[in-house]
């Protein structure tokens, strides 16, 4: 199948348009935010949105937050597999790498649980990626009692090589290293695979990835300097290549900032200044700011681009953000946040959320 022409993407993009059309709109989010309990949210989703199918066999009167979260994650994977169906060759490989993300998210869940000293049995209930494209053995992993045992249990998977060197690290620094290395693996693979696509799709995907990489590098450098005191030399090596507007020399200079203040000063007037412009909420919302930026990027690409790979990739991410927001709303109920606070935790920008 010679990808790259109108013909090849026509079918999948029609399907994506149909799927995208069903996604929740701002009105839905406002309604959801006004709900008082998880069952109320589930009920709204079941009766008023296309999540009817996801919830149809559930006892929503008594549904628990974790259960809801798992159902939605499952939903993402099912949608993903449907899309995967349409691709062959290099494009299929690309989507399989995109799929790795969910596996990596699960690994991170395990790692965080272990760093808090929790048992993995409980976490496993939230983990569902154990499908046909997976190479990891969840049953073995959940027997791990410590992070170093966990890493050893990953032997034989593609994750092992990147993680094996960190077994003597301690505490939150260890988590930082491991998560960073998992992300490095994902983005490196994705970037490599982008190179196997035809020129037009390669360009557009690398542009998209490049912006993501810039933001991730900035986050790492900021945290590496502020919280973990990594040496500049180390930091440079961890940063990803392929950034969109930050060259290697930019990154290098940033890594050699003497503290985070200097870093902020250098970046505040750049296009990524939004990450740093509110000192009070900088640490709390950094991740969300990245996601919101990417959300608008994906939305833009989705609207602008036709007949290439971007629509599928954008849809997958938009779906993920949608579900992340629904989950955030359910979490807000647990922590009893008021409406405007909830809004600031959402990926999307909703009237009244300006943090």
């Amino acid at each position, binding site marked *: 199948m010679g990808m790259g022409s109108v013909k090849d993407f026509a079918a999948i993009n029609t399907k994506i348009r149909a799927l995208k059309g069903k996604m929740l709109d701002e009105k839905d989010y406002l309604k959801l935010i006004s709900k008082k309990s998880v069952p109320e949210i589930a009920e709204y989703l079941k009766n008023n949105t296309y999540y009817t199918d996801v919830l149809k066999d559930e006892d929503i009167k008594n549904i628990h937050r974790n259960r809801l979260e798992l159902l939605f994650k499952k939903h993402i994977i099912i949608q993903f597999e449907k899309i995967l169906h349409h691709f062959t060759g290099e494009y299929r490989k690309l989507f399989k790498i995109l799929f790795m993300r969910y596996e990596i998210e699960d690994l991170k869940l395990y790692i965080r649980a272990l760093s808090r000293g929790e048992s993995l049995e409980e976490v496993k209930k939230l983990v569902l990626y154990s499908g046909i494209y997976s190479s990891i053995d969840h049953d073995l992993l959940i027997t791990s009692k410590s992070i170093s045992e966990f890493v050893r249990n990953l032997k034989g998977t593609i994750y092992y090589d990147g993680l094996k*060197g*960190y077994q003597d690290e301690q505490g939150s620094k260890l988590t930082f290293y491991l998560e960073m290395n998992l992300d490095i693996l994902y983005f490196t693979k994705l970037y490599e695979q982008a190179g196997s696509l035809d020129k037009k799709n390669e360009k557009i995907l690398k542009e998209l990835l490049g912006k993501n990489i810039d933001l991730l590098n900035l986050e790492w450098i900021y945290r590496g300097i502020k919280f973990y005191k990594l*040496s500049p030399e*180390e930091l*440079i090596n961890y940063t990803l*290549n392929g950034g969109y507007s930050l060259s290697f020399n930019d990154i*290098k200079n940033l890594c050699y900032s003497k503290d985070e203040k200097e870093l902020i000063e250098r970046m505040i007037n750049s296009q990524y200044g939004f990450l740093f412009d509110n000192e009070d909420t900088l640490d709390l919302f950094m991740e969300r700011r990245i996601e919101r930026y990417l959300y608008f990027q994906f939305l833009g690409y989705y609207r602008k681009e036709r007949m290439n790979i971007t629509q599928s990739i954008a849809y997958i991410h938009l779906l993920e953000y949608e579900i992340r927001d629904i989950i955030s709303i359910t979490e807000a109920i647990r922590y009893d946040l008021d409406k405007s606070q909830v809004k600031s935790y959402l990926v999307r920008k909703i009237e009244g959320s300006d943090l």
Partner: protein
Amino acid sequence: MAIEQMVVMNVVGLKDSVDNVAREIVLMENVDIINALNEINESHFTLTIEEENVEEIVDMSLIKPMSDDVSYEDTFKKIDDLSNVYEENFKVNKNYLDESFDYKLCSDNVDSLYDKLIAPYEKIMELKEEKKKIEEFYRNFMYIKDLDVEVETFKNLNYFTYTFGILSKENVKKLKRNYENITAIVLHTGTSKSGEVYLVISPKEMELETNRILRSLNFNKIEMKMNFTGTPMEIVKKLESRNQEIDEKLSELNNKFNQLKSQCKALVEECYSKLALQSKIKEVKNQMVSSNNFFYLSGWIPKKNEKEIMERLDQFGNLIIVFKGEEEFEEGFSPPTKLRNNKLFSPFEYLVKMYGIPSYNEIDPTVFLSITYMFLFGAMFGDVGQGLILFIGGLLSRTKSELFGNILSRLGISSMVFGLLYGSVFGFEHIINPVLISPSFEDFDSINIILISAVVIGVVLLLISYVYSIINAIKRKDLKEGLFGRNGVVGLVFYILLLILVGGKVNNAEIIPTIVIVSVLIVLIGLMVVREPLSNLILGKKPLYHETISSYYIESGFDILETLLNMLSSTVSFIRVGAFTLTHVGLFVAFEIIAHLLGSFTGSLITYIIANIIVIGLEGLIVFIQGLRLEYYELFSKYYKGEGVEFSPIKLND
């Protein structure tokens, strides 16, 4: 040609003869053991009440499962290890089984064999292990072979640490771009499969920083065994010579060891055979029960072997042996199925079993399947030359897979027969004259004839299937499906009438007036719809419906729709036979055109050879599968259930 008749054999005997009886049963390899405890509990285990049996019958109330405390596990474990030593799975040799069994002697023998063989074996393994390690060191030192420094120098460094490792291209680039800030000296020493090999030297005080930097580059450390002395090149030489030494030693040891192995082989096999028999005896005994004085055994045997088995068991004297034939089987008690077919058809049993083994009271479909499958395959793939290749291929592959070889050679013969009828030899249609018809594209009439004949053949096969289905229903005493069902008498009449109707319309000839046919068809549909209440009414069974009336009729209505579609699709499905007959020729015609275009003799020859390989390999496979599809989907689904259990007698080698 059929399914072997089965009988249940119940044996009661004195406990002291239990081992001999069990042993004989294993050696017969013709008894499918049933758990005697279940049999007695469900009162299937019957003895005639005669005076001489009284004691045995009375004792039956005191039964418990037969227990055998002897465990052969340890000895078996050693035999398993020996099987690793010999690198083969031992087979039972019956020649060793005549003498009586003495466990002590056998286990002593195994122990001494084990002691004799395991030490040299482990020595060899150890050397192989060392060889592996040396190969690894060798590889590692080869990365730095150009380094003209003695390795002791590294060990003796006081203010510096060193490490070797591999970096990926990507990470080398990163390192280079920040060289000015690195706390170490990095030297390129060689190339490996996964990247470039570097020697990194840094001040001891900077070790931690350096290690962190290296880690951030995913630096893959190579362990260098530093017990060696000299330059890497010298070490490489040393390793080479050690490797050679090991090779020599290994070949010497292997020679001796192989001699030892062949010396011991007979005894090992003897011990294995005896133990295997013993463990099978144990298996039989586990299914038996015993009382104070007697043992009770139960098993299926083929009826025709009744006498022979009786005679063989009689030598142990004082046994009560009772056979229970078909007439005494209670309902729901289904015997295992053993197929018996002659040499021509028996390989096709495999294809039947792939779908399912027939029930005991079902007709064995092997013969029908064999004949029709060979016929369909030949018809679709008729070629004297290619058939011959399949035939020879089948004969040759019998050594690898007897079953497959046998099936293939039979299909080859069928293909050759049809080749004669079609006049095809290796794809060429003009070398010999067709006896029947030439499936070439030069004549449109013959294309029509072939396609129509295919459907006609399909109709005939389907009609035969109906007959099979009706007979099976009679054997099952199933009035509902046999008489009124869609594959029963009503269904058959319906199908025939439908054919007459359609045939009449196509040929514009009314054999029976349409109005008559249509009204009969409607009546038949009615009968099929009400088949359950109707048959229950006839048999006087209550309730008439086994589900609610409305859901029965909804289901039944859809059933009719499906029946009609199924009749149509099954019949039309056989067109593929004709289509593949034509494809077979068509595919070759395409190659013929290529050969003509090439012009040269060698070019054409090569094209024809390739053409034949492709046709035999690819089309042969497709036709093989399509034939099977017709058998399974169109024919088996009509008349065959295949829900039986296979007769599996206890055997020595399995």
